[in-house]
């Protein structure tokens, strides 16, 4: 069954960025340049945090604006990116209303969540979870 990453309760988020670091560590490096997830305060940490990551849209707007067809629909929602076809135009970044497409400034390429679930093991408070996608009618 296809799965997707889901933010289950953002009010539990403590802003630790453990998930952000985990995502870049998928490739065995430190830092955050390859992270597809971002955590920022919503106007001062006393107000809480927002967790920004791909929502696994079933009809993703980013696909429609990619001029080279580098983005393909992913089973279960979201997209799969073919980096070889990416021409670094940034259209996809602008098309996502959640601003959930990140930018790797080192390779100058978009970074998009693959819904692998690696980050969930490191979230100490159960804010993010991998969920089964219920097939829609």
């Amino acid at each position, binding site marked *: 069954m296809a799965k997707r990453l889901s933010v289950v309760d953002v009010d539990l988020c*403590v802003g630790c*960025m453990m998930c952000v670091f985990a995502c870049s560590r998928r490739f065995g490096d430190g*830092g*955050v340049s390859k992270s597809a997830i971002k955590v920022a305060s919503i106007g001062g*940490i*006393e107000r809480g945090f927002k967790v920004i990551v791909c929502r696994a849209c079933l009809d993703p707007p980013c696909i429609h604006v990619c001029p080279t067809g580098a983005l393909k629909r992913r089973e279960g929602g979201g997209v799969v990116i073919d980096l070889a076809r990416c021409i670094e135009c940034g259209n996809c970044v602008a098309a996502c209303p959640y601003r959930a497409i990140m930018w790797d400034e080192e390779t100058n390429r978009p970074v998009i969540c693959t819904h692998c679930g690696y980050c969930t093991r*490191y979230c*100490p408070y159960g804010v993010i979870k991998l969920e089964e996608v219920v097939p829609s009618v």
Partner: protein
Amino acid sequence: MYNRDPLSRVLYIDLTSKKHWVEDRKDLFEEYIGGTGVAIKLLREEIPRGADPLGPENVIVMATGPFNGVYPMASKTVAMFKSPLTNNLGESHAGGRSSVAVRLAGYGAIVIKGASEIPIWISVHGDKVSFHDARALWGVRSTHTVGRVLREIETGHGFRTIMRIGRAGERMVRYACVVVDTFRHFGRLGLGAVFGSKKLKALVISGKRGIPIADKASYRKVYDKIYDAIMGTPATKKYHELGTAENVLPLNELGALPTKNLQKAQFEYALELSGEKLAEVYLGRRVSCAHCPVACIHLGALREPYKAEAYFYKTTFVSYDYEPIYAMGTMLGIKSGAHLLKLLDAVEVYGLDAMSTGVALAWMTEAFERGMITEKETMGVRPSWGEYVSYLKAIELIVEQPNEFYSALAKGTEYAASVYGGRDFALTFCGNEMPGYHTGPGAHLGYALGARHSHLDSAGYSYDQKMVGKEISVEGVVDYLIQEERWRQVLTSLVLCLFARGVYTPQVVVEAFKPLKWEVGENDLKEIGKKIHLLKIKYKLDEGFDYSKLRFPKRIFETPTPHGNISPEFMSTAVELYRARISEELKQLEPTLSG
């Protein structure tokens, strides 16, 4: 170290010429790791002998280490400078997002020197460094407002740190702090005043680099091992649940909780200020530093009605920790959580170090009770235990310094006592106000002998507590303090949060270094720790620190500890033994320490 790691890049910023440049200092990082080790070397290189801490010749170093941005709980930045409070070595550590921001902007350390003519703020976004006119921000009443303004106009959201000073820093109160990302601080020894003297209102840093790791597979393995240890260990559980405020009740029970200027070591209202009670009534949110799963930062929500408007309330979030609870709470005889939170909010708004401020106010209260100062000096304020309104007023006056008395108090408790009397109950160690543990001789020796006069230098309070019911020997305690302070130099060079010390044992540190292509053994680490410790002491001796002039406030001998009354003879024997050991080691190491 791995040559693709940007750690060895040091960013130099000259506030006088408004120039900046980067130098590769692999030499320093390879020998001294980072953090504390690299910072003391950089400070020594840049600062002239006998520098005026509030003159343009003072230098601010902010250093991170190889573990920041790489391993969990490596969440601190070390600031090194000359302290205007002690006129000697200044070192303070802050968390928040500071270390991750500096490191992922692509630097191991930042050196700030000179002084600006007009108020400015600096932003460092990766390679881009810019200077901004901060005249419009100078004089703004609250550090919260400055934070809000910068949050709006600066970039790097989510990957940045916003450090700023408040009115206290601008007015160069010698114990002004630098507020970091709201609720975290470079608290101790007056870095805020140094910022103020340089007309540096704020420093914004952001970055989102990757940190290339040499051996990726073993990196992930070691990471998981450390992560699991952090999540599974009782050592971090304590910070996790009630936060450091958990210490209030046990210390009270032990009779080690300084109360009313340490006239007593137990407080009848301790329960009201305890971690348990604060969590039950006020805890509104918990937050974490970047790359730390513990979330020890506890924010109390203080809800207050407006007097003039019916059904208008304001809710203020105030961070509380053990040390501020002691200093602004038990030391002042504060009886309720709400009053405590109001005082803590005031020091946050003005950008003062809560610990020094509380101790200063406690001295002021006792001096007032004894008639050494009167309402003439205090400008009508009648400081009295538990009366938080009088303390709120006094805090404001310390910041604004409208008369000689408040100017003196803004120079520190020790200075004020040298003018107005009451040195016997001025709780300072080499000019720095005392931390919140009256556990026995270990704690007080640690405050006096530790390189930054902090309870965190060598945790003498922890030694005292382990030794309750047993006899403490001079050799035993001196040995412990030296060993502990040296190992901590390694931890703060990496730069780890000291709450992670139970997880990062020497063995684990060695293992964690390996994937970074950094071959170092446990013995090497111990040697490096010793060298850094001696370097710091050497700096202090060169700047006039003198073991023979060490003064213990008389009060600490008068109030019993869990080890009974501390004996002055025990303390002076211990100081002499410490001095002898250090001077012997300095002689041996002298040739390798120069340069």
